[in-house]
């Protein structure tokens, strides 16, 4: 590479700062930079911008999740409820896995389908139990509450809702009354 114009230098400047040019070309660029302050500033900016970019990336990698306060304050009640519902689902599902670990041998890990099926069943049972509890607070619903309890215990015996119901059925039926 012989003496080059600034325009020609710009086209190889990125390769130069990344040290991807041959020794010969590198030397030619270095010679140009020694006598040209504008190109020197560009080369410096290229290096500096990459350092800052990497710092931002690394910060993203390390940074913990912080909810933006301004946005949270603006959020509607529906959004807040949605967040609470999602958190409750996660807690219930996590609890289910803690209390009812699915027995699998080390040779047969869970498939995605099995996990999905277990979560779906647990959620269905929890919904039914919640509805039954609401039903029990109304008058003249004892027969229906009993039927609901039997249904949950027979169809979802392996769920957290069923074990809660076994422990709590008598108080649930006490609250309900016959017509």
């Amino acid at each position, binding site marked *: 590479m012989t003496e080059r114009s600034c325009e020609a230098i*710009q*086209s190889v400047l*990125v*390769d130069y700062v990344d040290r991807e040019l041959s020794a010969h070309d590198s030397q030619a660029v270095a010679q140009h930079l020694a006598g040209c302050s504008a190109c020197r*500033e*560009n080369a*410096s*900016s*290229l*290096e*500096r*911008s*990459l350092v*800052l*970019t*990497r*710092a*931002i*990336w*690394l*910060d*993203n*990698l*390390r*940074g*913990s*999740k*912080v909810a*933006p306060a301004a*946005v949270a304050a603006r959020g509607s009640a529906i959004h807040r409820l949605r967040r609470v519902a999602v958190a409750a689902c996660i807690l219930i599902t996590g609890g289910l896995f803690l209390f009812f670990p699915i027995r699998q041998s*080390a*040779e*047969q*890990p*869970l*498939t*995605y389908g099995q996990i999905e099926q277990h979560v779906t069943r647990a959620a269905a049972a929890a919904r039914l139990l919640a509805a039954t509890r609401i039903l029990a607070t109304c008058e003249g619903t004892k027969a229906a509450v009993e039927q609901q309890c039997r249904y949950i215990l027979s169809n979802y015996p392996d769920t957290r809702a069923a074990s809660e119901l076994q422990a709590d059925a008598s108080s649930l039926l006490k609250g309900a009354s016959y017509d």
Partner: protein
Amino acid sequence: METVRANLERHAQVTDAQPSEPCLLTVFLREYDRLRRIAAGSGMAGSDIDDVLQDVSIQVLKHSGKFEQENEVMRWLIRITINRCLSEHRRRFRRRIPRILRRRPELQMALTAGTPDTADQAAMIEELEIIRRAMADMDPSLLKMLVLRYFSDLDSTRIGEMLGLNASTVRGRLREARMILAGKLVRRGIEP
């Protein structure tokens, strides 16, 4: 996420029994840190990165056994990670949560720690914000090149293979992206 990763590792040990095809899960676990960097470089942060990789891991489980070559697997993994990040950006844009512009005082403090001069510190913080904004405004096709090259340590040829481009196109886009970032600093009149 570590629990999910551990479970996937256990799953991989079993499914690895068929040596004829590249196990998607094995490649995913091997490239896990690279994918994490891609997500971080694409503007995700902290537990958002874990959320992205959680989704990717579900896709991995769903598509297990569908690929014949390892290169194909890598390309697919990188593509779905980037796409997942982009869709997250779009979702945030709609909800007006500019997370990529998030300012963390810890980063500013770390960068200015070795600079006692207050004016220099202010200039550094300003530069940081210029670059942050430039990255937020950058075309995703350029940003992903930057991330893959300078944060995931893939060379131009490999990036080309991953994205279905030739190496010279990749180099051209990398140059363009670098010049955009550097140009922002020069044009603001800040001495580098």
